[in-house]
């Protein structure tokens, strides 16, 4: 195919896509009218609470009251305008317009869902952040591995293992003086009790006790170990990376369920690790609205923010990061430049596993404080989808996981509102992240191009 016909073909596709997008925007605008605006009465108002539910340092902000019907009509007009513009002139950055339309539609949906009643908007965004956290960790983990050229489908297994190890380690050091329910004899050896007691005395803060940090470390370690195994299989033995990842997943599900039934269920002291409490950052947490959202969170959420920024800087602004990208795109060229491809891949995969371990720890010591079988529920795979959605960049992955987290939080909120207010069964809302993932993978937001040598084992000749 000559370049002329190639560019003609791509421009035809672009043309079709932009027209399709324009029509899509108009349809969305119509949907807002037909689905939402018509179903509301003129005197309805929607109240959005803007204060976090819990105790906070920030000053109280008044609730935001909207006239339901007028607001919906306004939003519908805005979307239709965007659609018309797209058809007539076309946006240069279509994806940005798509994002805006998406946000407006979601906002309209919220206005309609809370018609005649009130909804805590800030609480909802905060819940989205919390639910996005494991997906975000998973996405970052996948990102580190894939940028170096190794597909890591074992994030789910690593998270599951990280969850269990984190809670067990934290429980060991927290319940060091636990006794057998029947005999009354101490469950754990003396040296453990001594360590636990000393740690207890030197806690940095109530929100970040030592036993939780040790649990976190345990999760990181098991994530790293499993990742090392994945790397060993796929880099040294050149096993198909998807097979070796699936193996780790099956193994992790099996061994965590096995150990959970053998040890965690009979001995409750091993399965109550406590959780990270809210840790407000003095000063910034007093800013209204933004303060409680970003600066009055648990330690593990702060870790997520830090990781996103650190990985972004490391990947794009350091020598190590650029070498990683080189290894992922063109390992042969990197090799001839003297970069040790195998070592870079090993290190990146192990780092990825560690991040996945943190993500796993979130499920237990970051939220409920105990391990239940298969509690990750596919979040590791959604993390991969978020990574693809975010085009293999840390900030993109974080944004994508926020979207998925929002879908999750929305589903819970709607269940609370009741089936009469919002006639969509909760199971369908639970399906939403998976369906969105499929749309994303199908290229709805444009072709997502992975690192060039992703999934291909490197052979030195």
């Amino acid at each position: 195919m000559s370049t002329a016909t190639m560019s003609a073909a791509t421009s035809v596709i672009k043309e079709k896509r932009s027209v399709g997008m324009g029509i899509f925007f108009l349809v969305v605008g119509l949907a807002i009218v037909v689905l939402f605006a018509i179903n509301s009465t003129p005197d309805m108002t929607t109240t959005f609470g803007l204060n976090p539910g819990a105790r906070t340092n920030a000053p109280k902000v008044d609730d935001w009251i909207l006239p339901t019907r007028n607001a919906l009509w306004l939003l519908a007009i805005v979307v239709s305008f965007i659609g018309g513009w797209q058809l007539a002139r076309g946006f240069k950055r279509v994806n940005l317009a798509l994002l805006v339309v998406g946000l407006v539609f979601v906002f309209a949906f919220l206005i309609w869902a809370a018609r005649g009643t009130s909804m805590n908007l800030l609480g909802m965004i905060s819940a989205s952040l919390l639910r996005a956290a494991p997906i975000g960790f998973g996405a970052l983990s996948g990102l580190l591995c894939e940028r170096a050229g190794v597909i890591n489908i074992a994030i789910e297994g690593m998270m599951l293992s990280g969850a269990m190890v984190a809670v067990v380690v934290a429980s060991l050091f927290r319940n060091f003086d636990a006794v057998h329910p029947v005999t009354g004899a101490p469950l754990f050896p003396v040296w453990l009790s001594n360590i636990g007691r000393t740690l207890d005395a030197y806690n940095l803060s109530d929100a970040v006790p030592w036993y939780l940090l040790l649990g976190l470390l345990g999760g990181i370690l098991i994530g790293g170990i499993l990742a090392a195994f994945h790397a060993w299989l796929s880099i040294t033995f050149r096993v198909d990376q998807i097979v070796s990842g699936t193996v780790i997943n099956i193994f992790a599900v099996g061994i965590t369920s096995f150990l959970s039934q053998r040890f965690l269920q009979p001995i409750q002291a091993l399965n109550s690790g406590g959780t990270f409490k809210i840790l407000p950052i003095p000063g910034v947490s007093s800013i209204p609205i933004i303060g409680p959202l970003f600066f009055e969170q648990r330690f593990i959420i702060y870790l997520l923010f830090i990781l996103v920024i650190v990985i972004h800087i490391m990947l794009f602004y350091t020598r190590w990061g650029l070498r990683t990208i080189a290894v992922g795109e063109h390992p042969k060229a990197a090799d001839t430049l003297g970069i040790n491809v195998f070592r870079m891949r090993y290190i990146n995969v192990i780092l990825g596993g560690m991040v996945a371990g943190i993500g796993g720890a979130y499920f237990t010591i970051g939220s409920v404080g105990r391990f239940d079988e298969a509690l990750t529920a596919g979040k590791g795979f959604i993390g991969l989808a978020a990574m693809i959605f975010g085009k293999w960049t840390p900030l993109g992955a974080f944004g994508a996981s926020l979207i998925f987290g929002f879908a999750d939080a929305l589903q819970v909120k709607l269940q609370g509102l009741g089936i009469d207010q919002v006639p969509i069964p909760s199971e369908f809302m639970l399906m939403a992240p998976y369906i969105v993932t499929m749309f994303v993978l199908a290229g709805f937001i444009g072709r997502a191009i992975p690192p060039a040598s992703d999934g291909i084992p490197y052979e030195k000749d």
Partner: protein
Amino acid sequence: MEANVEATPSSPESKQPQLLTLLSRLLDTILVPVLAVFSALVIGGLIIIVTDATVYAAFREEGVAGGLVMAWQVMATAYGAMFSGSLGDTNAISESLVASTPYIFAGLAVAIGFRGGLFNIGAEGQLLVAAGASVVIGNSIQLPAIIHLPLALLGGMLAGAIYGSIPGYLKAKTGAHEVINTIMMNWIAIRFFSWAFTGPLRRAGGDAPVTDEIYRTAYLPQLFEGYRLHWGFFLALLIAFGIWWLLFKTTIGFEIRTVGANPNAARYGGINITRITVLTMALSGALAGLAGASELLGLNHFLAEGFSPGFGFDAIALALLGKSHPLGVVLAALLFGTLRNGATRMQSIASVPIDIISVVQALVIVFIAAPAIVRWIYRVRTKSDVEGTTFTRGWGA
């Protein structure tokens, strides 16, 4: 035989009798799988020992010798229970074959996917959808058995085929990797049926999330009185033969295998990649659907949560163990069915959690996928194993 001798006059194999060559080739093919299963069971046994409190108690109180004796006893009890539970008497054997039936179908599903270069992890969702279709056909209309049963089976197959072809189509048209799409569709199916069990499909007159039972005319009949073994088992064997014939004796099978081995060569040879990809996934989905349909029509007769204890995931291990060949898959499925049946007994007698089987399976896959590990452990030299087989390609087409 004469041609061999002329072509390689100095090769020692040409001087061996034909039987021995055949035996050595057979040994090559099954040695690694057998060693893999053996190693996996040994490691599984070690895990059982290491997590048993009585072993530690024995070490503490009776010293090393006593501890070792206890360890051996624990392992012997566990595996003894497993063997007696799976092969001990006719009832046990019947149960093992019953357990193998869905594995044969699901294993074939994944195997045919692998042959076409596709990793179908969606067998779980496909079999659920198919079971749903079968249960609806089975409990909503009454027809003479000669029509009802085949209709229910076909309905299940078709539902599975359609559900499987969606990721196939997405892969062919947009390059979206079937691994994530099939996993997503698994979850979609599970959530959908969670809703359906409490809504339109719920059994009348109660709150339990179960469906109505199917009419007797849609049952897959039992083979012998008193045993749960049903005709689904023989159907599975028949289908396995059919798949072998399809893959190795027809043009379509050749096209599927070519696309799997080398899509560029296939395209050059004029094979329509899109058509074959969708067809492969549809076939895979249909086979997985048969797993669900046969379980439903032959065993449960109604549908509820927790219908499948992970057939779809175990099937991956099966397909790898059987080297994606229908005969290998059948043998592997028989093995896994036996193991799983035995594990149930192991759980009730020796109180070993049944999840140890997942660990054993995972280890089997590791040893199969990296034959070098097995060879390194046992210092075996085989020449026919394919090193570093690529089953699928990366994310983009």
